[in-house]
């Protein structure tokens, strides 16, 4: 069995509070978009089921596209703004150990969270620009971060993660005590 290799030290230890990079943020955002879409779909299915039970006819979303779009936007706003206000992290960000903080590192306020959420569609609509800004900007802050006065940092306990990796390895065998000759 091949020995377990811990992740390199520079990738784990001491990264807490550092500006998060483009890949972690993009994937976390992807998870969030999937969560928003998945929960919306589940909601629509539940409502459709309800209308079928009540009125005997399922809800046809394709006939109410504008209403569906408004619902999606409101739901998306609620999803991001509420979670950022609550703890500075969404579901996807929690998965990847990211957190939204103020530009100086202070906890994000409700106002900042709302402004950031309102500015998020700008980055979402021009996603390549947002990703490029994370790469190029000195503090890795895209448009919605600059507008909201926020930043995204690594917030997972990387030190503990490394210790867990090291702990997976078998400890060295104990030295055997020499047996005494039978008297």
């Amino acid at each position, binding site marked *: 069995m091949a020995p377990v290799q811990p*992740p*390199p030290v*520079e*990738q*784990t230890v001491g*990264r*807490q*509070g*550092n*500006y*998060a*990079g*483009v*890949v*972690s943020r993009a*994937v976390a955002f992807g998870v969030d978009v999937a969560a928003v879409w998945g929960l919306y779909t589940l909601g629509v299915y539940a409502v459709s089921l309800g209308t079928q039970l009540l009125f005997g006819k399922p809800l046809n979303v394709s006939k109410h596209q504008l209403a569906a779009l408004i619902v999606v936007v409101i739901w998306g706003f609620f999803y991001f703004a509420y979670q950022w206000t609550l703890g500075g992290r969404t579901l996807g960000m929690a*998965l*990847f*150990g990211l957190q939204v*903080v*103020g*530009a*100086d*590192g*202070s906890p994000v306020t409700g106002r900042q969270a709302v402004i950031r959420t309102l500015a998020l569609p700008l980055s979402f609509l021009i996603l390549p620009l947002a990703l490029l800004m994370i*790469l*190029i900007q*000195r*503090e890795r802050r895209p448009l919605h971060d600059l507008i909201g006065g926020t*930043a995204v*940092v*690594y917030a*997972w306990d*990387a030190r*503990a*993660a*490394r*210790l*867990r*990796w*090291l*702990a*997976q*390895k078998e*400890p*060295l065998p104990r030295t055997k005590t020499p047996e005494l000759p039978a008297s």
Partner: protein
Amino acid sequence: MAGWSGPRATRRPAGRHPVAGRLGAARCDGARRGVGRPVSPNPVGDRFERLAQSIAERVVNLVLDAIDINAVVEQVDINALVADVDINAVVAEVDINALIERVDINAVIDRVDINALVQKVDLDAVVSQMDVDSLVEKTELGSIIAKSTTGVLTEVLDVVRSQGVGLDDFFARWTNLFLRRKAGTLPIGPPLLVAQPAPPALSPGAPTLERP
């Protein structure tokens, strides 16, 4: 000198009682002279010996009073004296085990103020010198940590997150290379979260440096 108990060693024989009258006085006089008891074989030499002893004692006391012992000790080269002593040989002759057995360790420990001792220890400095990675890796502490904290989800998260950080660094490195900027010049995090050299704290009324 065997059998002679000295002139002062008067001892009344058992069963005798004081006798009154002249006979009694004569007997007492005889007893006072040591009649009937063993005497020194050389009484004159003995007196001289005692005289010499008392003179010697008197002379020694006078000499000791006249000598300044501290001045004498100051002239002694203690270092040279100690250098001549073979400490190893002395120590080799000491039975350490017997010495330790005579020491009441519990009494010694009872007299130690452990709290005061611990407060003097800089635990942070001690811990900072420990190689925690090595400790976890080489002892059963690691498996204890693993059993208590590691679940499948935790392992997956560790892997995903560390891989994400690795890719982040990869892209950041190439971007810095492309833009020809040094990674060391970029801020690594918000000032409140990243330990950065703090500027010297100035009180509101403190003088500030003025530009020329």
